[in-house]
């Protein structure tokens, strides 16, 4: 019976995450029943492809490096010290994740473009249209993966393990690097992996900043092919995305090699009392540094979005130009706004629940599967994430139409796309949680007579709480304003916030103002949602 469930899960996973691409790859590789070598050659030996590949590796590698550099000290401050306003900082530094990256990119262009960026008067050398610019903007969004993963893991470590190191004469530095860091290594690696995959699959930032900077990335290259609006172009783009899969596979192999050394329980059945490190003299400087960082990663881009939202005419900086006209248009003159918000809330919540549940199931299944099967499973989950959204959307269209599933042009196919795309987040983070819980805690429940469901609801869910919350938000936020896939999958009545933003952006009245309003509202909504959740559950749930 249990075995059956396990296999059912794996089969489902296969159909959700792998089959569509096989189908797509197959459809694209054969021309009139003949395998089409030429198209592969054309896609992969193109000098632009090679250059994009190198750019992608350099930019995304640096992004992960910088993300880690930002996240490690932040995570440490937020969990190990008596930092003041901890809850506030925590929320602030997790929230950039809620800004849709392409909106963020627009904000940064507004702030730091070399012609008339808002920041130019203060920092005349600033220029987003450059390699460092691209890397920094990417880091400013994707560090959150590393941070959120680290936070949930750090919260769960038995504190006496760190105390034992302090007794042994280790200073805070050594405690962190010799004990804490190795203990949270699985989570750190997952976070880095997610950041890397997000960066290589990211299109918004790559296109808006990379194009203008003359740096082509793999996603933009795929986009170029796809935007040829021709059959061949479509095929080329599909085939080139297989290249992204290859990178993902390599990354997974590396992850496997590195992280098999770091698997152990952090949540034990002997409960220790946590004690916090006092910041003392560095209290004030730390607050200053955090404020600065928060201004850079959060306040500035939001400010830019807000300015755009309030501008009746974009770029007119005279006072009379500011007002709530765009808000008025969006909320009172656009009838699909409410439908779009409702659809997006519905989709994002469903996707977040579905992903967390499936992610949990897959993590538990991991205990019963052999190592190689496990790795294959992990790779399955990662495939849809590593592939650009358009390709995923197209392959889902292809699959649902060919299999005659009654999903086409419904919200169902959008949900399916979200689940496939974001499952990787949930799986990664929950899996870290599951492997870190000492088995005797589960044993004890079994002995007490609890069945699987009871163990799930009474033991796993509460113990995994920080991981589940992280998983929920990691899926909810990008799904809420997802654009690339939604644009292809939407139909009448199925508008989402993402498609609406796209409409307003591309065809809208105030060229950007309306989109900024929505982006701003998405943010406010998420902040409010998070705040209510936190208050309602006395700080137990929420970021």
């Amino acid at each position, binding site marked *: 019976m249990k075995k059956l469930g396990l296999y059912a899960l794996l089969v489902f996973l296969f159909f959700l995450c792998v089959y569509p691409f096989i189908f797509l790859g197959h459809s694209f590789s054969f021309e009139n029943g003949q395998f089409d070598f030429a198209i592969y050659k054309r896609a992969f030996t193109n000098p632009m492809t090679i250059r994009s590949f190198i750019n992608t590796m350099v930019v995304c590698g640096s992004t992960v490096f910088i993300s880690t550099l930002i996240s490690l000290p932040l995570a440490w401050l937020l969990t190990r010290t008596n930092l003041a306003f901890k809850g506030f900082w925590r929320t602030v530094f997790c929230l950039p994740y809620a800004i849709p990256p392409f909106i963020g990119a627009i904000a940064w262009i507004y702030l730091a473009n070399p012609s008339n960026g808002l920041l130019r008067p203060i920092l005349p050398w600033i220029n987003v249209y450059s390699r460092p610019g691209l890397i920094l903007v990417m880091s400013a969004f994707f560090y959150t993966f590393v941070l959120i993963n680290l936070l949930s893991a750090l919260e769960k470590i038995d504190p006496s393990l760190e105390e034992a190191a302090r007794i042994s004469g280790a200073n805070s530095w050594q405690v962190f690097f010799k004990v804490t860091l190795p203990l949270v290594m699985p989570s750190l690696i997952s976070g880095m992996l997610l950041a890397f995959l997000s960066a290589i699959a990211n299109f918004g930032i790559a296109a808006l900043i990379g194009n203008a900077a003359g740096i082509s990335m793999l996603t933009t290259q795929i986009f170029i092919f796809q935007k040829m609006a021709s059959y061949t172009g479509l095929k080329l783009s599909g085939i080139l995305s297989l290249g992204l899969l290859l990178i993902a596979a390599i990354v997974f192999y590396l992850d496997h090699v590195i992280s098999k050394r770091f698997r152990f329980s952090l949540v034990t059945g002997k409960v220790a009392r946590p004690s916090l490190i006092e910041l003392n003299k560095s209290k004030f400087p730390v607050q200053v540094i955090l404020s600065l960082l928060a201004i850079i990663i959060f306040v500035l881009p939001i400010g830019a979005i807000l300015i755009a939202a309030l501008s009746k005419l974009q770029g007119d900086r005279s006072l009379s130009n500011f007002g709530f006209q765009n808000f008025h248009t969006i909320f009172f003159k656009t009838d699909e706004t409410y439908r779009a918000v409702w659809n997006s809330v519905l989709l994002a919540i469903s996707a977040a629940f579905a992903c967390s549940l499936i992610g949990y199931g897959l993590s538990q299944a991991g205990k019963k599967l052999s190592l190689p099967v496990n790795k294959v499973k992990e790779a399955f989950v990662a495939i849809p994430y590593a592939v650009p959204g358009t390709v995923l959307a197209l392959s889902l269209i292809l699959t649902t139409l060919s299999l005659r599933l009654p999903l086409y042009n419904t919200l169902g196919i959008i949900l399916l796309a979200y689940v496939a795309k974001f499952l990787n987040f949930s799986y990664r983070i929950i899996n870290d949680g599951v492997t870190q819980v000492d088995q005797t*805690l589960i*044993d004890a429940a079994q002995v007490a007579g609890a069945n699987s469901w009871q163990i799930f609801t009474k033991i796993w869910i509460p*113990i995994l709480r920080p991981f589940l919350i992280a998983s929920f938000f990691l899926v909810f936020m990008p799904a809420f304003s997802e654009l690339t896939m939604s644009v292809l999958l939407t139909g009448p009545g199925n508008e989402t916030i993402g498609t609406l933003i796209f409409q307003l952006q591309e065809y809208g009245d105030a060229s950007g103002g309306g989109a900024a309003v929505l982006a701003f509202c998405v943010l406010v909504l998420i902040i409010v949602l998070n705040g209510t959740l936190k208050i309602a559950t006395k700080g137990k749930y929420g970021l």
Partner: protein
Amino acid sequence: MSSVEFKNVTKDYQGNVILKNLSFKINDGEFVSFLGPSGCGKTTSLRIVAGLEKNSGGEVSLGGEIISSPEKSLFVPTRERNLGMVFQSYAIWPHMNIFENVAFPLRMKKTSEAEIKKSVEDVLQMVELGGLSERMPSTLSGGQQQRVALARGLVARPKVLLLDEPLSNLDAKLREKMRKDIRQIQQHFKITCIYVTHDQVEAFSMSDRIMIMEKGNILQFATPSEIRANPVNDFVKDFIS
């Protein structure tokens, strides 16, 4: 009917043999202690009875029915074995307060709320933790946590009770009281008890029979007086002295 029987039970971890062909029978309502040096396989044997570990070979029976036999691909899951267990590492759930930790086995049995309240308060009183029921585990001392684990193991009056060094962090006075209480409950409810301890005094004073183990083997399985009178070999003699 809740006798426990091992027939040629073996256990290895990737070739590392931990239990070598154990055979013994513990009668219904009997109190048996496992005694032996650290690392000899006491915890492992207990976990096999509980079904938390699968034996690599041989048969385990509970109340006359086989509950685990790799040869016959038979395995009754833990929750259907109706056991109580106190873990060497406590295994207190960090997210539940003391009351909820102890109440858990009763909730699994769908006991009424009123009854749960009464039973939990009673057993907490017994382990001298009355008044701490609202506290979270992280605010308890080591010995207090151990007593929570004990209370949780006892509260549901299981048919078979497995105790893995349940008193190791308690002082002599409390320990003595606990021994008496455990013994009393055991006899009153006719619970079959397997008690793992490193403490000879404890084993000899509480048990109907004692099983002395070493490196995955049973050296002697007999009543305390028998063992004292006729230790089978020098190791046993030395160990119990």
